């Protein structure tokens, strides 16, 4: 056994390797990115040649993971919460197909929206798909769940959802690890029609999934991750989901006076919760994210046992929890530090000095000025910071790929000009299909694909679009006369203005690719090259 200092996300990567994983499939997204990055750098993963390349998006990742499971090997699929929306079709149906090799789908939620558009709770997807869910309370448990989750998946015959949140993903602690298990050798599914979801087969498989629910519940009932603790004071019982258990223990490091349940594997262990319910007057539910358990226990008319939590105002309705919220809910006096003085100014994120996106927005703002505000749709990436001063250039940021399609819809409604600003990685994630729609209908839109040859917002991963954007656009049918590449650089300001001015006024699909490598990525590359040459010298 060795002890390593690992982020929760890294602990999952290590656990998956030690659990005999043959491949990780993922698209970057905060706070899930470090799982895959850890595997990419890991020596055992390199020796074993575990699959660890980035996928083009979460749906392709989920499907590739399912394919590896079909072939009898163990796979993990990783994404941020909104990525599961993209992968949802494959995910929900994977519950019906079931697995052959073990399959863990790790989804990192971002309550408080530190780096996201929403704070959706992936446990709802797990419940909706009727799949078992694991929700670790700390880094060690995250490791154990990733390590043993493949076996659980194989035993129950379905994918397992491993749900974490930002705090666990991005917090470091000592984790004890064990020797890695061997990988599965690979085998075809015993039932050759298991993965053929024609209606007649799908109906049978769905009935099978319904039948399995009892075994899922039983597994949760017996899981060591779920624990019942007795307490003297029966006026209250507490259910702690995932990391909220830590916030309870922070307030009662010695012993919590109330009976409580540590809940880390779903579906809900009914017997364990009934035992709690029989003992206590009221139940407080602590959960990170949406009030899933609270809602299930409250029922429609809220009669009977009083259920306390986010819905009745005992805890905040939105945002991530912390030890102070839990203390307040338990009537424990919270210490107060001094108020932050008023002199402090906000410090929002901003584009780096020298970033190529500056050059794009400077030119675009000039060209769009005569048309007034409201013509530019954008997307998700560093370039979204163009929504903030000094540029305030863009009018939308919804979900990956939506810039092109929203620009199309607005153009269909008569908005002219209608402009989309999208990044290279976002374009290959979800922008290409929308561009095809526009090409097929000759919709008058202008698309700027800001190619910084990097997936920068999430830390500069390699972009699937590298070196391919022009050929993709031509392949989709963009008119070569209206496809232009230009280096995004202050020296090209006038040229870019002229180009944009011409194409924005063109009444068809045009694509402009302002290109220059992300300066952060370039700096890292140069540093790495320097280090390498020093080592060789």
């Amino acid at each position, binding site marked *: 056994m060795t002890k390593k*200092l690992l982020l929760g996300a890294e602990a999952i990567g290590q656990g998956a390797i030690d659990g005999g994983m043959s491949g990780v499939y993922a698209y970057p997204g905060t706070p899930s990115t470090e799982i895959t990055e850890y595997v990419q750098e890991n020596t055992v993963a390199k020796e074993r040649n575990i699959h660890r390349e980035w996928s083009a998006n979460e749906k392709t990742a989920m499907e590739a993971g399912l394919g590896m499971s079909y072939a009898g090997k163990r796979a993990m699929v990783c994404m941020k919460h909104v990525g599961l929306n993209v992968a949802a079709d494959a995910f929900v149906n994977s519950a019906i197909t079931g697995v052959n090799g073990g399959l863990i789908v790790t989804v990192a939620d971002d309550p408080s929206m530190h780096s996201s558009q929403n704070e959706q709770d992936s446990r709802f997807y797990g419940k909706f798909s009727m799949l078992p869910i694991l929700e670790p309370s700390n880094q060690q448990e995250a490791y154990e769940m990733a390590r043993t989750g493949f076996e659980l998946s194989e035993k129950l015959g379905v994918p397992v959802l491993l749900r974490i949140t930002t705090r666990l993903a991005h*917090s*470091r602690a000592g984790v004890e690890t064990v020797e890695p298990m061997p990988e599965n050798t690979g085998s075809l599914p015993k039932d050759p029609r298991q993965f053929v979801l024609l209606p007649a087969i799908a109906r049978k498989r769905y009935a099978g999934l319904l039948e399995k629910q009892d075994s899922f519940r039983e597994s949760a009932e017996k899981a060591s991750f779920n624990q019942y603790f007795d307490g003297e004071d029966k006026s209250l019982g507490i259910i702690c989901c995932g990391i909220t258990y830590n916030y309870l223990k922070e307030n009662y490091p010695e012993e919590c006076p109330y009976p409580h349940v540590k809940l880390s594997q779903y579906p809900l262990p009914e017997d364990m919760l009934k035992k709690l319910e029989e003992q206590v007057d009221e139940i407080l539910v602590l959960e990170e994210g949406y009030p899933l358990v609270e809602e299930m226990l409250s029922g429609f008319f809220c009669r009977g046992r009083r259920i306390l939590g986010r819905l009745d105002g005992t805890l905040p309705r939105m945002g991530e929890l912390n030890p102070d919220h839990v*203390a307040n809910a338990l009537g424990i006096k919270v210490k107060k530090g001094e108020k*932050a003085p008023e002199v*402090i100014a906000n410090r929002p994120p901003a584009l780096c000095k020298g970033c190529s996106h500056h050059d794009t927005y400077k030119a675009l703002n000039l060209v769009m000025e005569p048309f007034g505000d409201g013509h530019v749709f954008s997307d998700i990436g560093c370039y979204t910071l163009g929504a903030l001063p000094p540029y305030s250039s863009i009018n939308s940021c919804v979900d990956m790929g939506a810039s092109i399609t929203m620009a199309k819809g607005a153009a269909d409604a008569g908005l002219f000009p209608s402009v989309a600003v999208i990044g290279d990685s976002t374009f290959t994630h979800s922008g290409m299909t929308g561009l095809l729609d526009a090409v097929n209908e000759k919709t008058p839109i202008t698309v700027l694909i800001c190619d910084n040859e990097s997936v920068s917002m999430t830390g500069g991963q390699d972009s699937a679009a590298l070196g391919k954007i022009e050929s993709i656009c031509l392949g989709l049918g963009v008119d070569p006369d209206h496809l232009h590449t230009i280096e995004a650089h202050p020296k090209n300001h006038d040229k870019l203005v002229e180009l944009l001015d011409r194409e924005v006024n063109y009444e068809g699909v045009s694509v402009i690719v302002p290109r220059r490598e992300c300066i952060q990525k370039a700096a890292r590359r140069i540093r790495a090259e320097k280090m390498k040459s020093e080592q060789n010298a």
Partner: protein
Amino acid sequence: MKCDIVLAGVGGQGILSIAAVLGMAAVENDLYLKQAETHGMSQRGGAVQSYLRLSDNPIYSDLIPAGEADIILSVEPMESLRYLPFLSKKGYVVTNTTPFVNIPNYPELDKVLGEVKKQPHHIAIDADKVAKEVGNSRASNMVMLGAASPFIDIPFELIEDGIRKIFTRKGEAIVNLNLEALRAGRKFAEANR
């Protein structure tokens, strides 16, 4: 022993190098450690913080409760003030005095430092200047760690060892430079506490 530290700065200033050295020292000292970091959007020049908790007993929460931090260790003066609600009555503010100005409405530096000096326990050090004197302005984070070290209950030699381990890949010269930066920071704090 229990020490809760809020590390503060601006995305890109590299506060995590401080956490890495302390983490190494804590592991060598058989202490429990939890360290919550900021990744993602705010790393683009936004306000970033890391909660570092050290203890000889198991640590539960990754977050530090309000009013319980023993130290706010900030590599930027305005950022040191942002986390005052976390500081305990007996806690120390240890901050660099060199501002990082990347917003148009950065307050007057005198006002910022005035607020720092209102704190009953504070160390305000021009870490950039001290680092330059030692020989490399990029070692200012280690100057800051040195300035906070008298208030952290870990043997100083273990923090030095932490630096050796973390920087060893970069060669002997860099290790020594960072060690000197650390010692210079500590000396300042001992003289000015």
